[in-house]
């Protein structure tokens, strides 16, 4: 009888907290979108669209567009040796929450971005099954710092594993292989592993 009373009290506490949560958990009212401001994300019906959405997210500095395209269940980032040596230990256990932290810190740092997530002529194969590995993608990201107008370019080659989770495709693993050269100057550039190392904690 006593146990039943305590249980009722605990249940009541739980239900009361749920009701109270309506006040504590109300999101803010957003501003209506400005004229001409539109980010045309593609449906996540195939890996090519998912990868293209990252480019749209980068150029719009829109973190939900990045978060929506990386695996909700499990995400892994594997750096190239150069980035791993620059940031020892940082990439151990790099998962979705670390990736979300990285992209938000990066976007909130006051930057403008120009991105080309595939090299000219690269064609994604048609989707098949529930998992696909796309190899040798070369991306190119130019980051302009708004506060001091400095420009840093990142260019890397990577292998990416995509997975069909529930109803949509997501990036499950991003493995940077090596930095690529600046096509204009020939200088060896870093991969986005260096960006992750800088903004990931």
């Amino acid at each position, binding site marked *: 009888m006593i146990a039943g009373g305590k249980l009722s009290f*605990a249940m009541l506490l739980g239900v009361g907290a749920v009701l109270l949560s309506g006040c504590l958990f109300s999101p803010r009212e957003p501003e209506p979108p400005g004229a001409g401001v539109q980010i045309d994300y593609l449906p996540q019906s195939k890996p090519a669209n998912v990868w293209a959405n990252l480019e749209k997210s980068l150029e*719009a500095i829109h973190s939900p567009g990045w978060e929506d395209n990386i695996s909700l269940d499990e995400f892994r980032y594997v750096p190239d040796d150069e980035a791993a040596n620059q940031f020892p230990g940082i990439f151990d256990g790099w998962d979705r929450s670390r990736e979300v932290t990285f992209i938000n810190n990066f976007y909130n740092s006051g930057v403008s971005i120009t991105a080309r997530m595939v090299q000219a002529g690269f064609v994604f194969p048609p989707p098949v099954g529930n998992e696909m590995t796309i190899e040798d993608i070369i991306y190119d990201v130019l980051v302009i710092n708004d506060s001091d107008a400095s420009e840093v370019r990142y260019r890397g080659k990577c292998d990416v594993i995509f997975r069909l989770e529930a109803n949509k495709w997501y990036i499950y693993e991003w493995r940077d292989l*090596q930095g690529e050269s600046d096509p204009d100057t020939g200088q060896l550039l870093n991969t986005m592993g260096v960006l992750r190392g800088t903004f990931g904690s």
Partner: protein
Amino acid sequence: MLLLLLLVLAPTVGGAMSAGAQESETSGAEAPADTSAAGSDTTAVSGVSGLDLSNMSPLERIQALAELSEQGIQQQPDSTREAGPFFQGVQNVPKVGALANVRQYTYYGELITTLTFRKNSLFTNKFNWSWEEYRKQDKTVEKRDNKFTYGLGDNLPVKVNLDGSWNWSEDNTVNTAGYANLSKRDQKRVGMSANKLKFKTGFLTNSAKVSAGFMDQASVNQNQRNDLQEGKMDAGFQSGLDITKGISIAGRIYGTATAGDRALGATTSPSSANGDSLGFGVYYNKDFVLGRVVVTRSNFEKKYLDFKKNSNGLIDTVGVDEDQKVVTELETVDAISYEMINNFSFGAFGFDTKLTRLTDDLDYSQSGVGLRQKEHDVMDLTLTYASGRDSIAIGYDYLLKWDDQRYKAATENRGRQYNKARDYEFNYFRDLFRRTRLNLRYHEGLSQDIAENQHNENDKDRHQSDFSASLERTWAQKFRADMVFAYQQVQDFNIRESRSSNNNVKDSYEVSPGYDWTISPWLNLDQSYRVYIQYTNYSFSGSRKDDYSKRGNLATRVVVDPTSRLKITLRHDYNKRFAATKTATEASGSSFYSRDLNQSINRIEMDLRFIAAPGVTLEASTYRTRDDRETLGTSSKTTRTYSGELWVGAKVLRKLGNTNPLELSAMVRKYNAFGPSVTETSSDYWEADVWLKWGF
């Protein structure tokens, strides 16, 4: 007076200090995470390895000791080595092996030499060599590592350890454009540490640690050298006092200093670092409560050569004159952490509280980053109740963190970047009937990004609600069935007009019944069905069209063990899914969707495992997938795509000889794959892990 004395005692650097340091070496021990008043984590870990040596063979014991020694962990005194002659034995364990996978081949060799002495004194040397050759990249890596440790055991009144390492590596990579880069490193390090744990002076229980080391590194990357020669000393002391039964106080002090020379590019300069940390804690374990209150303050200052960096801390040397690419940086860190943890339990009730605050100021004299300030506050509350067949857990977590920055040469801060997150979770478990368990879970969370003074446009809120109910029933290890229903709603709202066009609400539903049936000792059937439904509704009409998608998945697995040597697993996975876009909504609220995609995916898989002889197992696995897609719209398109894989292989594990056996372990598999994304290197390759080991 006693308190004043204790306040001067030692903690460690903790995360706050190491966060600002550029090398892991600079951080000291962590503040204690348990209620032990006298013993920091570094010192506490010594002497507690958890290994039972008594059940090991002499070779295994030596190897285990070597592993522990390498990790810096001292074993509990081994009674077999307490007395006897000064030199008690030498053991060598050479090992050679090769690894292969879709990316690379690795060949390696290893030699562990262990010398044992009286009174638990131990010398271990481990030499490793490896050569990596990459299949897809024009890249080779050679590494040579040598590491030794020497523990004086119980020969001295304090624990003394000597250790040293020599790491050498060369990485040759040619990228797609033909740029060849040699990244090489040659690093030598030697160190000594001494500690004494839990010694008594009057009423106080103390632990002390001191260490010193020297590092010499020469490295080159992209034709830029990065060399250093530095010596380092650090020391820590902590003391604890049992005030009364169940209540203790402890204080800790830690200090570190480094000095030497560094060379970066064409510039050379002296380098130095020094830091200190103070901590004080109250620990209690009395009646219904258990917990601690700990305060730690850390300071750190480091002077070193660095490349010129922009306000985000990224190397920015493009277009900069050669003599200005490298700067002499002075980095300072000032951090304080507060922690209060309390666990209250009374009968069936439990109430856990955790409150923490961490503040951290990081200042650079040269980098464009300038001054960066952070604060991180956490509150976690958990209420639990368990009685009879019912148990409940209610949790509320709150996080408030912000960071601010004053760029180099700026006169004002840019404004705080806030992140607030709150989560509420309610869990209810009940045993409905015999072997039948119900679990209800409700979760609600809100995370917010807020830029003070709107210094960026990225303000956003994410509100998430989850509800799930699961029922599980087990029938005497023969049959188990479960059923899960889950609902989730996610509201993604960007607040500013420049980012809000994609604001949306996603509603997801999942129903997944399943069962696992052991039909006979040699036959098992496992089947599950899952339906996922997701609606996405965009907040601002005209920005994007709402959509709807649905997927059904039937997974079947049959495991057959016809004999103790043979195991066959068959799997079939059938998916049917479609995606649709909203075309109209009636005044009554009914919505109409137009299908964009119909898809069905069939995958069949078979694994086979056969023990051909003791220590020899033959294995094979294959799958084939068929993917039918029908894209609907102004012009419809139908495609059918196949993909598949087959591998065959064997595992061998043999010991040859009796007294000092030669051990052979080999796993070899040959892969062949096909499909639209399969490249030349991934269509035909070997996977292997083969090694040979001997102990003498």
